[in-house]
């Protein structure tokens, strides 16, 4: 097994390279990450046979990705925080056009005030676009998820946004098992779209559609999201076969007998794992549910895993102001019809890179008796 150490963003770049995209478009300046730096070096050095399109803004980057994908090739872009916000309009168009673009977003806060550190409000603001969303915990998972993302997106014909937490994952050096190109090629077949921009076979894309047509096209997007569960499961099975690593929509840790369950998405999951271990050492039956897929949201799976628990503390790293953390909304939604549903706590854990220590989580679990379900919870 070929192991190496690399930054989370470098692992993403490697995953992209192994996926053999034909077009990479990106805005190279702040808030960009090493992902694009590495990919541009790979293209420049001839390791990756792709067009690297350097553009003047994220709006152009995502537009170029749209164009490339519509032209029938595998397209990739990466961004972060404000850059993702700037892409917003075209993100809609890519989903509506049913183009399997893969985008990696380094989760970082959006101002004001200025803050360059990590939280998930940038991508949570983009949850309703028709893009699938996956949150990664480790560099390995990020690399693997990029490969899976192309597979899933191209089967479901909806784009995927893969999230890595800024700095705590994107800039952390850690070990990664390096897949070979042969393995990757075995897992991910070449992209062969049936319909694309082709002068010899003219079609019109995104032509005007009145409500009766538009309505049903949107219904079809939802159908595809629902159908994507099968595709994702298939991708996970194939991935396991090819690489020997298992993935699922969610991942439970010490969940079976847990009374207090933390729900979280992203790289902070690791810190919570350590906290769960400590709580178990203290005799507190804590557990963890890590959410990988936020879109499509695996509500049925989560319902089965959580319906008998006593306390569910949802650790949000973003807020839907005036409502709840987005993760909390989804978890509550999943458990709505359960007669003996757990106490669900809407906890805002970390915004703008506020540090989270194992002790914080341990104390939170110890204090669970004093928590209220009736209101959003913020740290002291």
């Amino acid at each position: 097994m070929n192991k190496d150490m690399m930054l989370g963003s470098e692992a993403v770049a490697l995953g992209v390279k192994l996926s053999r995209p034909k077009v990479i478009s990106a805005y190279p300046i702040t808030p960009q990450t090493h992902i694009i730096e590495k990919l541009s070096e790979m293209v420049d050095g001839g390791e990756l046979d792709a067009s690297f399109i350097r553009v003047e803004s994220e709006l152009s980057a995502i537009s170029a990705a749209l164009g490339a994908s519509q032209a029938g090739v595998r397209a990739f872009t990466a961004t972060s925080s404000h850059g993702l916000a700037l892409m917003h309009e075209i993100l809609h168009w890519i989903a509506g056009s049913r183009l399997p673009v893969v985008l990696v977003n380094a989760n970082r806060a959006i101002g004001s005030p200025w803050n360059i550190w990590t939280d998930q409000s940038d991508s949570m603001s983009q949850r309703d676009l028709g893009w699938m969303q996956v949150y990664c915990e480790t560099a390995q998972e990020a690399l693997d998820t990029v490969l899976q993302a192309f597979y899933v997106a191209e089967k479901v014909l909806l784009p995927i946004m893969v999230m890595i937490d800024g700095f705590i994952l994107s800039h952390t050096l850690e070990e990664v098992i390096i897949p070979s190109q042969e393995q990757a090629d075995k897992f991910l077949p070449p992209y062969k779209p049936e319909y694309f921009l082709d002068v010899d076979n003219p079609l019109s894309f995104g032509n005007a559609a009145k409500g009766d047509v538009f309505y049903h096209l949107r219904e079809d997007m939802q159908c595809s999201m629902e159908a994507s569960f099968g595709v994702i499961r298939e991708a996970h099975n194939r991935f396991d076969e090819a690489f020997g690593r298992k993935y699922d929509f969610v991942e439970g840790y010490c969940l079976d007998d847990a009374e207090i369950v933390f729900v979280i998405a992203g790289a902070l999951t690791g810190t919570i794992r350590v906290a769960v271990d400590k709580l178990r050492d203290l005799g507190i039956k804590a557990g963890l549910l890590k959410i990988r897929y936020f879109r499509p949201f695996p509500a049925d799976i989560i319902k089965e895993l959580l319906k008998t628990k006593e306390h569910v503390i949802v650790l949000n790293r973003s807020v839907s102001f005036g409502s709840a953390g987005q993760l909390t909304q989804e978890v509550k939604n999943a458990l709505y019809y359960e007669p003996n549903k757990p106490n669900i706590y809407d906890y805002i854990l970390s915004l703008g890179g506020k540090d989270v220590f194992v002790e914080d989580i341990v104390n939170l679990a110890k204090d669970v008796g004093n928590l209220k379900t009736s209101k959003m919870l913020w740290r002291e």
Partner: protein
Amino acid sequence: MESVDYQNVISDKDIRRFPISITTTEVNLTGSWRFYKPEFKEKISPCSVGCPANTNIPKYIHYLLKNDMDRAVEVLRRENPFPATCGRVCPHFCQSKCNRKDYDGAVEIKQIERFVGDYALKVPPKKAKVLSSKKVAVVGGGPAGLSCAYFLALGGYRVDLFEKERFLGGLLIYGIPDYRLPKEVATKEIENILEVGNINVNLGVDVNKEKVEELKKNYDAVFVALGLSEDKTPGNVAIDNEHVFSGYELLKEIKVNGRVDLDGDNISVLGGGNVAFDIARSIRRAGKDVNIICMETLETSPAFEDEKKEAIEEGIKVVDSRFLQNLKITDRGLHLQLRGVDKVLDNYEPVLNDYVEYMDTDILIVAIGRKREESILGIEGVFFGGDFYNGAKTVIEAVASGKKAAFEIMAKLEGKEFKLMNEDDQFFRSTDDFDEYKVIPFERININYFSEQKPIKLSRLAANERVNNFNEIVMKPSLEKILREAKRCFSCGVCNECKTCWFFCPDMCIDVHEKVDFDYSFCKGCGVCSEECPRGVIDMVEDK
């Protein structure tokens, strides 16, 4: 819109439909929404109006930039068979009308024309066919006569051309000094005119009034452009070819022999026109001290500005606002009595003042203009042109008058009405009457498409490099400079296939190839093309 049908292009029942339609937007004929429509209508550029021969300057510049030199030459020759000559000696009235003049400086059209003209020297025009049995006599082989013969020959008429001298060309060959117009250039250009065919040249034939009457009987039409045949002299002075010489004749001698020997070192030239300056500068090149005596002030004297400036640089002294009142021949030379001039009237009569001045000189050269043979002018049914008809003018004006006469003659012989305008092929758009066309003013130029850029600077030989030879003074600009200058042309009213309209058309219904074509099935008449066209080529008209 109803006809756009989204197909079930994906068969998988879960994935379902895509926003792709097999039908195209072509079913949606947006052209039906239109109530104004764009029309491609080229206009006339101010420079074309300024040019007496109405050369389509933007068009040949366009072809030059397209690296289609043969087309550029074709456009130039369509109006003027002397581009290499005019690229050197023409005062370029066009430049004074250039829309760029008050923006950042007129386009240096002269050097562009010279560049294309020099290319044209190597490209003889195509032979013309004989299309008519009628014959025309052209009297005078100068620029006017050659121009008339050329256009008649192109029109399919046979021409007999009569020239008094041993060579064709008139002032081009016998007048303008080599430093302004090298003999080889004019000679080659004349050769090229004759390449058109249909022109039978008769040299050494002196045509007088009787001869014109005879030609009138033997030919279907006669064009006379004899030029000016006799020197004017001040009333009290006679040309004796010892102390007093004719400037015209001396210039001729220099052109033929390459030199002239005058017995004296201190030479005075009388006159303020180009001939006066030309002879003064030519003699200066033999190392003599030369001064010019003219009635006008230096500023108002009729010679070209370049001539005056260069003459002074070369060390020629200009004694202006002076009238030669008396002249005494002494054993030491000439003693001149000059009177001060307050102003010169329109009929060239000076208004003298009381100032008196005396000047000694070895030789006086008279260059105050020439006269024509008036008796011929009385003959009816004959066409006249050139300096003979218009008085001393420029080469391009002679060319224009010959051209105009050729078209008048052809119209007459074909029994048609002569029209200055020829809307269809722009073969001859000519002179003053532009009613049917709009000339593009500066305001119609979409200035957003042009950044300020000064004209190219010309390299000239320094005065000390030129006073001992007859080399051309303005050096030929490099190709790079010529192209840079050509790119400055706004191309007022003339499509140069910039494709701005094509780029902006929201309905993708514009095709640009030589001209702009509109697909009216889809053109909504939004007017963006017309609004954006940098040069006013697209008009919006009501669509009925």
